[in-house]
């Protein structure tokens, strides 16, 4: 009889997920070792779900001592190899979007009887501070019991760790004993090593109960509002002041109430708005603009969030009805005009910040419906004075359009997934932007000291978030430099100054054995690529080409699978080497209809064409 760890002839010896986080930059290695115990060749597959914000940097597959590495190439180059694979009737996409936060990397290979295989996937990401915490998210879903299953996370934060927690959705009392989490000073550690028996979904079951989300959250000490770290000529500057009063805000909610919002969507939207109204502060101003075929406003001007007005606002929200078509342009233009007029007429406090939150579930189909024209109208009306946040509810909408329009106007777009918690998603988004502590934030460095800095000006700094700027030191012999962060607070103008002793800072970090040497350079590259890709969405022509070229060069240099690159994985199959391609799926694109390579491999080529997930 075969042990419980053998399923369909395949035994998985071990799966180890090791995460090393240094200054918010996470380097994750997932290694699985398996053997084919069957008498015949078997397919062994390896699935990893990784955050959408992560970049894959490496994948290798070792079969009986022979290693098959993945090579990261320019997408066009990889595509030629991909086309070849497709012409042979096989889809080659290795990565596809998976749920809200994740994308799924899948590879499978035929392994001869008795052969062993090791898969190793490495990906990296910069953990973002969100509502006061950094979060590292791991999806755990082994297909069978594993002899040695292990998650190890080592966190090193030069500012010192102030809190650390780890939890899993599949946690039981028994498993709690094998989850250890500890932190002291600059180091934190999380370990999770369930035994074989602890993995069983019931006492005699051969199925695994490890199925769900494993989340590590932590934060760092913030005695000082800023922290600058330097390694090998690259620096990163983290800025997150605390205990500042919240800048009053003027919010216009521009809500789609067209016929498609009928039913649960509108119910959830109302619930979210009612909750948001409860959280409004008395210093804030607000209004609601509803758009369908026409535009309806709650009040003609912005209204102070007094208890009486909020009560009236709630009554208004409760009575919102769906009707008609989708006139995005007029809804937005009305909201922008209202904010501009309020500022001009000094209706709103001088020290306050304005924003528009637009929610829609569809495409513009009445009034001005040309997306380019809507973008132009909005851009010209806002003139960079305040941000526009676009929430796209569901999938029947042009998300690219919403994202582009938001980015053009210093905001961002967020998809609201149609689900039971859609109201919570909307509230969650509002919570992120509800507490601006600083506006017009600019991070300044001496011009001759540094180069290649990432974005250094932000319209807002929100409570619980963090501004991260990275760059390169021009002068390697530089002893010190000063970083100034200027911003307008609720009551005053603030200039935070950070004196950086280059040699001391570098020496202090190098002494830490936790650090993988070039992490700040990689963090800088990661951030630069992300920002170049974002900027690229807003421009055309030569500028777009330049940004693309820069992002591509960095992606190739630092071996990141980004929307501009692909990783080609060469697999031995029946003595013929075949290739598969790992690409990065994009949020704005429709969900690809491809099946994963693993599923596809044993089937005849279907009649339907396959779609390639392409960054362009």
């Amino acid at each position, binding site marked *: 009889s075969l042990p419980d760890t053998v399923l369909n002839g395949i035994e998985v010896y071990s799966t180890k997920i090791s995460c090393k986080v240094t200054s918010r930059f996470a380097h994750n290695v997932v290694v699985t070792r398996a053997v084919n115990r069957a008498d015949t060749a078997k397919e062994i597959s390896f699935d990893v779900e990784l955050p959408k914000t992560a970049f894959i940097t490496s994948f290798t597959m070792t079969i009986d001592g022979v290693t098959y590495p993945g090579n990261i190439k320019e997408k066009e180059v990889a595509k030629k190899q991909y086309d070849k694979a497709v012409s042979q009737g096989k889809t080659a996409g290795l990565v596809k979007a998976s749920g809200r936060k994740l994308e799924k990397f899948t590879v499978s290979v035929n392994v001869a009887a008795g052969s062993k295989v090791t898969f190793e996937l490495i990906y990296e990401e910069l953990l973002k501070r969100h509502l006061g915490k950094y979060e590292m998210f791991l999806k755990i879903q082994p297909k069978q019991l594993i002899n040695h299953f292990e998650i190890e996370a080592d966190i090193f934060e030069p500012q010192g760790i102030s809190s650390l927690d780890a939890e899993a959705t599949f946690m039981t009392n028994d498993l709690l004993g094998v989850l250890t989490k500890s932190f002291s000073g600059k180091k934190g550690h999380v370990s999770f090593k369930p035994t074989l028996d602890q993995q069983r979904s019931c006492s005699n079951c051969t199925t695994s109960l490890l199925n769900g989300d494993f989340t590590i959250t932590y934060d760092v000490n913030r005695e000082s509002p800023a922290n600058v770290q330097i390694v090998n000529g690259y620096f990163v500057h983290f800025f997150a002041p605390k205990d500042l009063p919240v800048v009053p805000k003027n919010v216009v909610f521009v809500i789609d109430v067209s016929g498609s919002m009928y039913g649960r969507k509108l119910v959830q939207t109302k619930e979210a708005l009612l909750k948001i109204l409860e959280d409004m502060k008395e210093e804030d101003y607000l209004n609601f603009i509803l758009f369908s075929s026409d535009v309806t406003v709650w009040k003609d001007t912005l209204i102070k969030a007094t208890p009486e007005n909020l009560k009236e606002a709630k009554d208004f929200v409760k009575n919102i009805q769906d009707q008609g078509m989708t006139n995005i342009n007029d809804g937005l233009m009305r909201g922008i005009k209202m904010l501009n007029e309020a500022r001009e007429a000094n209706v709103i406090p001088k020290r306050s910040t304005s924003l528009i939150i637009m929610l829609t579930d569809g495409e513009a189909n009445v009034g001005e419906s040309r997306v380019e024209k809507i973008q132009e109208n909005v851009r010209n009306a806002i003139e960079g004075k305040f941000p526009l946040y676009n929430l796209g509810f569901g999938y029947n909408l042009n998300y690219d359009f919403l994202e582009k329009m938001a980015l053009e106007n210093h905001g961002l777009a967020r998809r609201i997934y149609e689900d039971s918690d859609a109201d919570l998603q909307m509230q969650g988004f509002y919570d992120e932007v509800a507490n601006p502590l600083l506006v017009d934030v600019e991070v300044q460095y001496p011009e001759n000291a540094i180069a290649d800095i990432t974005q250094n000006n932000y319209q807002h700094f929100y409570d619980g978030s963090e501004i991260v700027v990275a760059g390169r030191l021009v002068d390697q012999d530089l002893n010190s430099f000063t970083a100034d962060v200027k911003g307008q*607070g609720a009551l*005053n103008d*603030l200039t935070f*100054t950070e*004196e950086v002793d280059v040699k001391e800072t570098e020496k202090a970090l190098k002494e830490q054995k936790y650090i993988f040497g070039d992490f700040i350079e990689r963090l800088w590259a990661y951030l630069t690529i992300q920002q170049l890709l974002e900027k690229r969405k807003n421009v055309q022509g030569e500028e777009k080409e330049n940004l693309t070229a820069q992002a591509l060069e960095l992606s190739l240099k630092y071996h990141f699978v980004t929307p501009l690159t692909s990783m080609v994985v060469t697999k031995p199959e029946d003595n013929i080497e075949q290739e598969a391609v790992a690409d990065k799926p994009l949020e704005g694109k429709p969900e690809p209809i491809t099946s994963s390579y693993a599923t596809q491999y044993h089937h005849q080529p279907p009649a339907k064409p396959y779609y390639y997930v392409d960054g362009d």
Partner: protein
Amino acid sequence: PHFIIRVPEKEDALCFNINEEPGVVLNLIRDPSTGISISGQIIGEKKVNVKNQKTYFGRLGIVNTRADLKIEVTTQKITLWKGLDQTNFTWMNTVMVKQEGLSLQINRKKNIVVSIGDGVSFVIILHQVWKNLPYHHDFLGLYTVDSHRMSVQTHGLLGQFFHPIDFEVFDVRPGSDPSKPDATMMVKNHKLTVTRGWQKDYRKDPRHGSEVPCWFIHNNGAGLIDGSHTDYIVSDIF
């Protein structure tokens, strides 16, 4: 805490101590005309029941009633109020704060320069000691700059000396400590026995300070200060 009063007209200085219980709040400066007042709360050493326990300022409160502004400085943090809204900083910040009628520069772990209105400035120095010292802990120092910009009505333990003061010292004679002669001082129509000594000015060197020779007035500045030192005890930092 010790007080040093520089008297430029005499190219000399006067000094005195105020010995009060930890927790007591003293009115240091009060100018009804500009609306500015500063108070300081006394802290003692870490160990109680120490003979001749030294006391320091551990908390300072600055108020500008005209601008509806309050600043509280402790050895841990700096809190700024405008009306009911507050902003907090720690001594780990280097930050310049500007708002109508106020400029506040915090220099990380060193000092704070507060400028109010038309240029009245105060410097608050953080004296840090090694945290494992058995007796001492961090304390604060207050220095005034441009005190002539305060009105003639300014009073308080320090504020009363913003106006010119005249004194005369005579009959210098050996004191109980051979290195510190005693003398007789005529000031504010009082005849006092004073002792030549030194006190430390920490503005330039917060760690070691620089020694300032001064005439020391005994008994909590009795005779030099208007009234008794207990007249300056107030109930609250603001």
